[in-house]
């Protein structure tokens, strides 16, 4: 059979997000592949330059839809670095709780999204139901389900509501009790193992070649290369947690590592609530009206560990009320572009959606 051209996306049930991969397929084998992004391109980097520092808060969570809080975190962190302010201790711990909850949310999304390429829709049904519970918690804390705008420069927007601590901890205790069920459904399922194991490899040299970070990197390199460990931000150096690592990176390893990261995140949330001091939750990073803040001149790169890897903003301030330039490093940029181009050829057509899914590619953050 000769080469056939296929469009994998943008309208395709296996494609998460609005992106397209152009494939040339021979028989069942992918010969050439390239990502065609831009369907979600909104011109964020330009829009940010037209808004004030505080006004941008409404804009930034929308960069990555599946995991919005990382955007607020990098933005706030970068501004605090430029303005050289110290935020209250309590805010650090609240931020950690929020960040870990959103990480769990993103991991559950991607584990549920494993359903469509492998056909195990029951996993998705269960996962999404639990995601809804976490989003309800977010709604109680911040007032919104997806875009929270809760982590602001200078701390967090407001104090945690009364009794939310027990509500969160109760939910996660209950969730932990149910986690073996998920493990049995997904990872002990022989059909899923047949699909995932020894399939879609990511060797170490590829990690360095592409610049893959996050779970992809840790599953291949075998070292805890996690921004939370390597350059601790917030108070990640105070809490005790482990980063799952592996040296054999197939689709199964990368998926099961997400499961263990959820466990570690729950551990961090518990510790953060234990260690959380009382006190203020925010300070002003500049004097005056929040909408007329000016920041000193300076530029910095601020990065956090997202569910997919190192997520960063390069922020330039020229001393005015608006950012001069903000550049976004989407965590899945390397594997999304160069990875698809170089390493998706060679997999079977059946595995192309699985490739896209288990490499942890989030289209909105690539497109911006």
């Amino acid at each position, binding site marked *: 059979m000769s080469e056939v051209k296929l469009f994998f996306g943008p309208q395709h049930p296996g494609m998460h997000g609005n992106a397209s991969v152009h494939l040339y397929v021979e028989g069942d084998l992918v010969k050439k592949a390239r990502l065609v992004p831009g369907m979600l391109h909104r011109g964020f980097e330009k829009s940010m330059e037209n808004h004030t520092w505080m006004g941008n808060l409404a804009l930034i969570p929308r960069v990555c839809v599946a995991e919005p809080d990382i955007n607020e975190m990098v933005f706030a962190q970068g501004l605090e670095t430029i303005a050289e302010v110290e935020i209250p201790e309590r805010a650090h711990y609240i931020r950690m709780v929020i960040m870990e909850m959103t990480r769990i949310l993103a991991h559950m999304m991607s584990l549920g999204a494993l359903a469509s390429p492998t056909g195990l829709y029951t996993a998705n049904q269960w996962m999404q139901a639990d995601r809804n519970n976490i989003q309800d918690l977010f709604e109680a804390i911040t007032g919104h389900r997806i875009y929270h705008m809760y982590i602001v420069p200078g701390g967090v927007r407001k104090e945690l509501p009364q009794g939310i601590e027990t509500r969160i901890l109760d939910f996660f205790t209950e969730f932990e009790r149910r986690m073996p069920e998920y493990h049995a459904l997904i990872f002990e399922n022989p059909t899923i193992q047949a699909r995932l194991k020894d399939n879609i490899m990511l060797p170490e040299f590829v990690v360095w070649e592409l*610049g893959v970070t996050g779970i992809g990197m840790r599953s291949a390199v075998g070292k805890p290369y996690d921004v939370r460990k390597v350059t601790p931000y917030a108070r990640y150096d105070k809490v005790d947690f482990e980063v799952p690592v592996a040296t054999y990176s197939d689709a199964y390893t990368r998926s099961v590592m997400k499961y263990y990261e959820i466990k570690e995140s729950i551990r961090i949330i518990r510790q953060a609530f234990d260690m959380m001091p009382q006190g203020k939750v925010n300070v002003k990073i500049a004097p005056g009206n929040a909408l007329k803040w000016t920041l000193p001149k300076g530029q910095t*790169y601020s990065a956090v560990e997202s569910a997919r890897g190192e997520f960063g903003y390069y922020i330039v301030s020229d001393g005015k009320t608006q950012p001069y*330039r903000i550049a976004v490093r989407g965590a899945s940029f390397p594997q999304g572009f*160069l990875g698809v181009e170089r390493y998706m050829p060679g997999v079977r057509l059946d595995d192309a959606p699985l490739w896209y899914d288990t490499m942890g590619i989030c289209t909105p953050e690539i497109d911006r």
Partner: protein
Amino acid sequence: MTNSMNNVKAPLLAQIGALFPEVRLKKDRDREITFEVQPRDLHQVLTYLKNAGWRQLSMISCVDWIEDGQFELVYNVFDWTQGLRVLLSMKIDRGEAQAMTIINLFDGAMYYEREIHEFFGVVFLGNEDALKSLFLERWDDIPPLRKDFDSRAYSDKKYVKRFYDPVYGPQGGASFERS
């Protein structure tokens, strides 16, 4: 934390100072050092850094300093073992925006360069792929992230806005009549 990083930073600063006299230290933050490099030094500095442990290119970004008539390209490399980030800032002329590609050093740079070409119009010599459009389809104006491109004016010109004629009162609400 700053103290713990000093034993990493000091040898780096000494080495860079000895090897590349034209490279200037621009900013020294906690875990982030910014150097200013000349275009002719860039490849040597990046090669040195890559061999010294900065194996990952985090990103390349571009800043349009329109008043100085310059583009600033920022190469961002990270060392995962020591946790130290190095930013190399390189100024190029805005009128004839050209830079040498670094895809022979970091393969991952390919698409960052393509993106910068699309958004700023910087031509990367040696990376022919970068001349194709990536995010935008049939773009018909100057590269959008340049400072002299006005996003709002372009939007007003290109897209039909919804005209609101609110009628306040019992029948109130915005008019949703189609034009």
